[in-house]
């Protein structure tokens, strides 16, 4: 039994009477990368927080090296060799890398900070993950991926660290950055450090993990070696039913009628000479590397940001769009990649969020009608199958997928015909993703048109009729999806 470094037995945890974890047990071997998968709200993050001492467990035991340990707070966890990297990065952007890594425990000499030792230690910690950067660099100047690396370096800088918990470390990284991260994880493995890896991107797990534990509704469904499993096996275990097709089929809906035409749209810092046509009933994919300018183009069309030049035509006539209000008037809407800060009024109810883009619709004789608001909201909640305890539910208490549905409901409540989805499934679990895809299909079947921006190539290829490849602020290729391969994309995108 000595080869298990961490054993979790029968852990349960309830929040205000709602069970988040129910008798969870699993074991981690030394030097193993262990994947933890499950839908949003399945209890993965809660489990991580219990192991790290952020939450107290209601019952159950945690054993390290076969001995039972009591973890009351994050410092206890560190003392037992457990370090965590959270989904949200916890770095201070005004401080340097070195100060962030040793925050709260700066080396001291004669009561003053020993800067020389601090920088030496930091260089060592960075070298450990094979990362070469000046320890004095301010965090604020680093990219998200670089910050992620610093987080890892910090977690490993505790000399006792033997178990590293990573909660969706790749969510914000580009493909290339993910590769670097994986290199680091592999080298950790060689050093005998165990890693618990949480991710929604199943492909990644197959690449890096040895063992996989599936959690559903706070219970462990199964722990198994990852070899020999397929993506569909894992998916069906996660959601408890078979998914036959990841991308739902739809009838051929696109026509030749041009609803949106963009001509030579340019912005001096972000993109130039963007010209394309969007047809009625079509899903037009927009793919490219992160930072290629996809989001900026969408924001330009929707009137959020200033454009230097270029024209936009709606149904053949030229229009001026200087604000989102203009865009909405011409029937365009934009579903931001950042739902929480740009799409929703988080502290408000589902009902109020659904009305947010079209308050005028609720007026009866010039007065807001509560009854009408509830009717509309009820209908949309029903139609989109939003899982909510009621129309009064605060939207921030919904899961990612349901938040996205509320945003969509808000736009369906207006008269828009062109939907621009920016990363519509980011941070959303597999089951809800499928529903979002179905909703997109339903939109085009009703004669609406969709522009879909996504960093996940399989997704954007699976859903689109046509694909625009954006490379460094310009359109590198306009491809028919039926006749293209992922290699075509790589060729144009880089």
């Amino acid at each position, binding site marked *: 039994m000595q080869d298990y470094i961490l054993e979790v037995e029968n852990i349960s945890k309830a929040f*205000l009477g709602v069970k988040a974890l129910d008798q969870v047990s699993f074991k981690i071997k030394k030097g193993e990368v262990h994947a933890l998968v499950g839908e949003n709200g399945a209890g993965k993050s809660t489990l991580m927080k219990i192991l790290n001492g952020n939450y107290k467990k209601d019952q159950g035991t945690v054993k390290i090296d076969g001995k039972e340990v009591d973890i009351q707070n994050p410092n206890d966890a560190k003392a037992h060799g457990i370090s965590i990297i959270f989904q949200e990065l916890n770095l201070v952007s005004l401080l340097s890398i070195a100060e962030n890594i040793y925050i709260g425990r700066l080396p001291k000499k004669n009561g003053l900070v020993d800067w020389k030792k601090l920088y030496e230690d930091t260089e060592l910690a960075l070298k450990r993950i094979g990362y070469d950067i000046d320890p004095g660099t301010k965090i604020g100047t680093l990219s998200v991926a670089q910050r992620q690396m610093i987080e890892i370096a910090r977690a490993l800088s505790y000399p006792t660290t033997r178990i590293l918990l990573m909660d969706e470390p790749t969510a914000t990284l580009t493909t290339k950055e993910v590769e670097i991260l994986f290199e680091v994880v592999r080298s950790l493995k060689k050093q005998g450090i165990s890693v618990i890896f949480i991710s929604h991107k199943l492909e990644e797990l197959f690449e890096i993990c040895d063992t996989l534990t599936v959690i559903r509704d706070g219970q462990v469904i199964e722990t198994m070696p990852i070899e020999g499993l397929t993506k569909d096996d894992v998916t069906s275990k996660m959601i408890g039913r078979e998914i036959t097709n990841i991308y739902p089929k739809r009838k051929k809906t696109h026509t030749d009628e041009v609803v949106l035409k963009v001509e030579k749209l340019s912005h001096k810092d972000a993109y130039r000479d963007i010209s394309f046509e969007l047809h009625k009933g079509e899903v037009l994919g927009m793919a490219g590397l992160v930072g290629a300018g996809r989001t900026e183009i969408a924001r330009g069309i929707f009137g959020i940001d200033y454009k230097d030049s270029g024209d936009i035509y709606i149904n053949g006539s030229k229009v001026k769009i200087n604000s989102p209000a203009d865009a909405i008037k011409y029937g365009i809407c934009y579903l931001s990649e950042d739902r929480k800060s740009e799409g929703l009024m988080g502290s408000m109810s589902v009902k109020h969020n659904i009305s*947010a883009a079209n*308050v005028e619709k609720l007026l009866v004789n010039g007065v807001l009608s509560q009854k009408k608001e509830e009717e509309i909201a009820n209908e949309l909640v029903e139609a989109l199958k939003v899982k909510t305890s009621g129309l009064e539910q605060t939207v921030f208490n919904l899961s990612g997928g349901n938040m996205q549905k509320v945003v969509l409901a808000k736009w369906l409540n207006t008269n828009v015909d062109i939907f621009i989805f920016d990363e519509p499934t980011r941070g959303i679990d597999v089951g809800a993703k499928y529903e979002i895809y179905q909703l997109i299909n339903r939109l085009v079947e009703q004669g609406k048109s969709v522009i879909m921006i996504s960093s996940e190539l399989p997704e954007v290829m699976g859903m689109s009729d046509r694909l625009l490849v954006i490379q460094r602020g310009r359109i590198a290729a306009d491809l028919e999806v039926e006749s293209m391969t992922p290699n075509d994309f790589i060729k144009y995108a880089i």
Partner: protein
Amino acid sequence: MQKNNVMIKKRFDVGWFAVNNFGLILIVLMVVFGSIFANNFLTIDNFRNLASQIVINGILTIGFSVVYIIDGFDLSQGNVLSACACVALTILNGTHNILWAFLAAAAIGIFFGFANGMIGKVIKSDGSDSYLITLAMSLVALGFAYIWTKGLNIQCDSEMTSYRNIARGNILGISNTAVILVVFLVIVHFVLRKTAIGRKLYYVGANKKAAFMGGINSHNYRMYAFMFSGFCAALAAIVMTARTGSANPMTGNNYETDAAIATIVGGNAPGDSKSGMLRALFGVLCLGLIRNIMNMMNVDANIQTVVKCIILLVALYALSVKKSWGGKD
């Protein structure tokens, strides 16, 4: 474990009620306390007295709450009130026309509110910027009042009894000013709850960026709220000068503090769809009762200020507890 859960649940419910109805509970406690410890508290005269005492704070709090709902803070109210009061009396004395005096005060108040909002729009301000903007504007208003009056006290022309009667008269035994407050409260409540512009103010307060992306010109709506707050300062200035018959640059000094306390003690919060005039009224009543009871018990004015601020801090604590319970865990 099961037992443990039940306990959590119970504490949750009672506590939940307490933090959600902080103002109401405070009012009940106050009334009980007052009727036991203060003589003559439970008399009709005292309640009439109370009703007219709260009017100025009440009018200012209406404006303050609206600004607070859009996630702003208006520290200029007090000095804008002074500026409006000085201008109103000068115009009144010059024209002997109440309407002109009112319009002049309203114009000054709305202008300062417009300036607050416009600066916010130009610098694309967030909630916390409005503290600084309105603080600066407050000093501008103070300076303006000093220049306008040359630092002197302005007396209302003794012929203008009709103007003074605005504060002196009563309708069915209730003072005119209290009637003005109630009517104003009802109108603003209607606008906030039943019109598109009112609803949009809440959206802007809850998430300025998301409101903008939903087609609402957020900064304009923020500006409307500040302009409205300026108008409230003007209305309060009319009531105040009608009551006292005089105005000087210190007339409204520090009145914004009481309005802020009443707004927050009442339980208002930025972008909170349950915030509004009812909560503003709770806050105003709380503050009014505290002052009324302590006056009757002959409590020193400085101690009164301390007590008010302690209540504000408790209210802020209740608000933060409420926020943390509103979260997911």
